[in-house]
């Protein structure tokens, strides 16, 4: 099956700087593909090249197998939902959605029928005559998507469309976007710097940094099996230490941190050599807390310390534990109630399995 969207060796040079450096990927039909990266990593540049607003310096973009080089933006079978949606403020909802259909030269009655249909599908029937500034944030969002989907594009590009919404609405729109994608059965390419948006909605995520893809995979892959230190640090929260590798046994290693703590860990990507500098990442939820050291006997990393801070955040509450030496370790508090009365300064035992960590060569 030909992928809906395929980029090969995509490169974009702006004067001195290379914004995108030889990026290749393909997106399967009907899937939700996200490009996740910090601002300035080049993700918007990729999107604008796919939409046709920028010409790539090198490489090829193919949509349904057809090269899009030298095809004007208005002739490409892709449509884009802009960051601030860019609804036409001077037109009402029906004219906004009908704009693309008018460009295709469809008749008035057919446009009206299609606009009505798409409004039904996004769950906003009967708002044809309203102006964009009379709509709520979520409604604008859906109208912006409908305006593109009514043209039945092969690929829909979304450029951080949830960025301008408040937190509660953003949470709801994440779920809504995912179901709209299933409803329209169209390939979505979504760019964002917000990892939770990418993790919740995507079938495939590409983590991008400094113009290159660090790793492409499912949300689960990125979270549990990061291939690079950047991915481990960027996706999800982590405790992070630097140290020197003391022992190597297959993918298991032992690492000595600068303040003398010995940590058992595991490499996820490239193997590490004894004596090399390395970084170790540990998820707060991979750490177990116990009142009694015996409960943690099966872990290869065990530590005794005291609670130095309580970070209450409902279900995602955490504590900071300070051991005898070394930095504070962030630990997710289990919600079973046994630690509900934990106070600052209370002695606790913590432990984790070395297999739950990810180690990478430092500086990579």
């Amino acid at each position, binding site marked *: 099956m030909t992928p809906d969207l395929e980029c090969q060796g995509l490169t974009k040079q702006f004067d001195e700087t290379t914004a995108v450096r030889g990026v290749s990927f393909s997106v399967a039909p009907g899937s939700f593909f996200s490009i996740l990266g910090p601002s300035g990593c080049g993700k918007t540049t990729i999107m604008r090249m796919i*939409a*046709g*607003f920028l010409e790539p310096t090198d490489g090829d973009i193919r949509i349904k197998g057809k090269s899009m080089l030298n095809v*004007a*933006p*208005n*002739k490409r079978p892709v*449509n*884009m939902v*802009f*960051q*601030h949606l*860019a*609804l*036409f*403020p*001077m*037109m009402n909802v029906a004219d906004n959605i009908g*704009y*693309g259909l008018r*460009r*295709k030269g469809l008749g008035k009655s057919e446009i009206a029928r299609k606009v009505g249909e798409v409004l039904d599908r996004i769950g906003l029937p009967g708002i044809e005559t309203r102006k964009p500034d009379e709509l709520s944030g979520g409604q604008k969002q859906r109208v912006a998507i409908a*305006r*593109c989907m009514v*043209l039945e594009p092969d690929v829909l590009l979304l450029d951080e469309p949830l960025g301008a919404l408040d937190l509660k609405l953003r949470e709801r729109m994440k779920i809504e976007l995912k179901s709209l994608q299933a409803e329209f059965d169209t390939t979505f390419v979504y760019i964002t710097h917000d990892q939770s948006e990418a993790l919740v909605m995507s079938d495939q995520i590409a983590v991008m940094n400094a113009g290159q893809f660090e790793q492409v995979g499912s949300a689960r892959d990125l979270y549990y099996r990061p291939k690079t230190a950047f991915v481990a640090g960027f996706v999800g929260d982590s405790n992070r230490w630097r140290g020197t590798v003391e022992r190597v046994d297959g993918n298991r290693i032992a690492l000595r941190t600068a303040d003398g703590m010995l940590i058992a860990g595991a490499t996820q990507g490239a193997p590490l050599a004894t004596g090399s500098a390395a970084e170790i990442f540990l998820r707060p939820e991979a750490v177990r807390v116990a009142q009694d050291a015996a409960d943690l006997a099966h872990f290869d990393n065990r530590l005794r310390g005291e609670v130095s801070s309580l970070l209450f955040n409902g279900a995602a509450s955490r504590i900071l534990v300070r051991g005898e030496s070394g930095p504070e370790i962030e630990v997710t508090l289990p919600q079973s109630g046994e630690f509900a009365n934990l106070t600052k300064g209370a002695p606790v035992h913590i432990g984790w399995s070395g297999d739950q960590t990810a180690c990478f060569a430092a500086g990579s």
Partner: protein
Amino acid sequence: MAQGTKLGFYLLLTPLVLWLGLLIIIPHIDMALLSLRERVGVGEYATSLANYRGFFGEPIYMWTFLRTAMMSMLATVVTLIIAFPVSYYIAKIAKGRVQSVLFLLCLVPFWVSELVRTFGWMILLRETGLFSSLLQWTGLADGPVEMLYNDVAMMVGLVYTSMLFMVVPLVTMLESLDDAVIEAGYDLGGSGASVLREIVIPHAMPGIVSGSIVVFMLSLGNYLTPTMLGGKDSLWFTELIYSQFIVRFNWELGAAFGFMLLILSSLIVWVTLRLTGQTLEKTMGS
């Protein structure tokens, strides 16, 4: 505290009231009374509409007025056609320094007085002027060419004088149009022409209308440019008013002409606003 705020409010209001009262309302009341006065004998006056009857009774007055209105409209349209691409370039295509330099260049002609600016055009266009000499030197013309004292020269002068007043509201309006909206227009299949027609122009409409009103009023009330650049056939309505007041010393008829100009220009602006579906509030508030 409330007393202090009230005093401040009145103090701030005073200049406005003085300005409106002394410069606009009182002179116009006086003009209105003057225009309704008819001289019946030496030093004897009666209230009548004779001056207005005079205006409508003499075709040359009416024709001059219509001509002035039509030419002003033409000047407005020409200014708009030239100013729109200039404004679009300044607002949307030029970036950073170039943008401010270009904007400043539009302003530069206004550093000298209108009189000097008009003389500048006379130097270029007269029989012994620059263009005439150039045409002779290149062999395109056999003898001196007179380009002054006709409608075209006058139109050039009017457009040149009004340019800035069209560019400023247009640049402001176009700058407020999000680039993403234009891009969305292309992204959804629009061509340059349809993006311009459906997105850029509707968005810029308040700026177009307010610029047009200002340019139209300025052209209609212009005295210097038509007098200096226009020929003897290009009689401007303001010249009629001038001659009634200063040459004929017929202040009553002059005042009536002045009032007709005010009423008819207001009418034209109102009709234009109605036709374009704009309100004065929307265009001037922008």
